[in-house]
């Protein structure tokens, strides 16, 4: 997927840089894959295999049906071997990806209208 043609508000850059490009307990690659799966337009699309299979249900439901997430989902991530800091980062990456796709679609529509 190509990079977005829209410009995000400046205040968002710090958030994106830290969460999706900065140091953490999880790898930058994993956070970017998760954000892209959640829809983040600015993340390069990668092969679906880049996302560990055990993460896919959590990422997809948190991105698309957030109200269906329960404590059982967090327990499942722990059982799969993720520690609390990793779960913290992964949930934030999904949330940011879901937010970015909505912002990007809206800004793109605004640009279409102006063109």
């Amino acid at each position: 997927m190509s990079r977005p043609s829209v410009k995000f508000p400046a205040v968002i850059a710090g958030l994106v840089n830290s969460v999706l490009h900065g140091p953490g307990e999880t790898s930058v690659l994993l956070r970017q894959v998760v954000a892209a799966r959640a829809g983040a337009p600015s993340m390069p699309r990668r092969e679906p295999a880049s996302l560990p299979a055990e993460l896919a249900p959590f990422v997809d439901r948190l991105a698309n049906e957030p109200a269906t997430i329960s404590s059982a989902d967090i327990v499942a991530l722990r059982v799969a071997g993720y520690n609390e800091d990793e779960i913290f980062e992964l949930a934030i990456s999904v949330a940011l990806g879901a937010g970015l796709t909505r912002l990007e679609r809206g800004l793109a529509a605004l640009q279409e209208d102006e063109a």
Partner: protein
Amino acid sequence: MRLTVLEEAGGWQVALLQKVLGFTPSLAAVRHYRPEFFGKHYAAVLRQALRRGEAWSRGDLELMAAFVSSRNQCEAATRSHGAVAALYLGKEKVRQVLGDYLTAPISEPLRATLVFVEKVTLLPSEVGGDDIQRLRRAGISEQGIREALLVCFVTAITDRLAESFGFEPAAEGAQKSLAFLSRFVGYRAG
């Protein structure tokens, strides 16, 4: 909270909130846990999105945030944003908008914006130029659209944090205290 590390989030801000409010708001715990990774940057976006805008009042923006959270079926965030909106717009108006925004007694530009906000939240891939034209016909400026989109962005994040980490809706009295705090100091404290 579903992560014990969030229960242990420290810092003077959390201690002060605990002392003033008698509880630690869930969002504050998330903001103050490893703030260099997320909370500091998220707070900057939150402050920009939900301060008084150039096109929309603070009450309108908080109402939009409560509306987004209600569409995401996120009770904790619907109540927290709704409580702040009610300080500006009145509890009854907030209740009516969250119940049925198509018949609620609000301005037509605000109603048109809520239609847009709902689509951005639930059907983002279907948002297009037609939606923008409808907003313009309703008298919404480009700045008004940008402010609404920033609310959609930050609330999409907040709602997913609430569901992931298990935010508990505050009791009504505690919620009102937090809303007063948010009204007078913005999102600097919580």
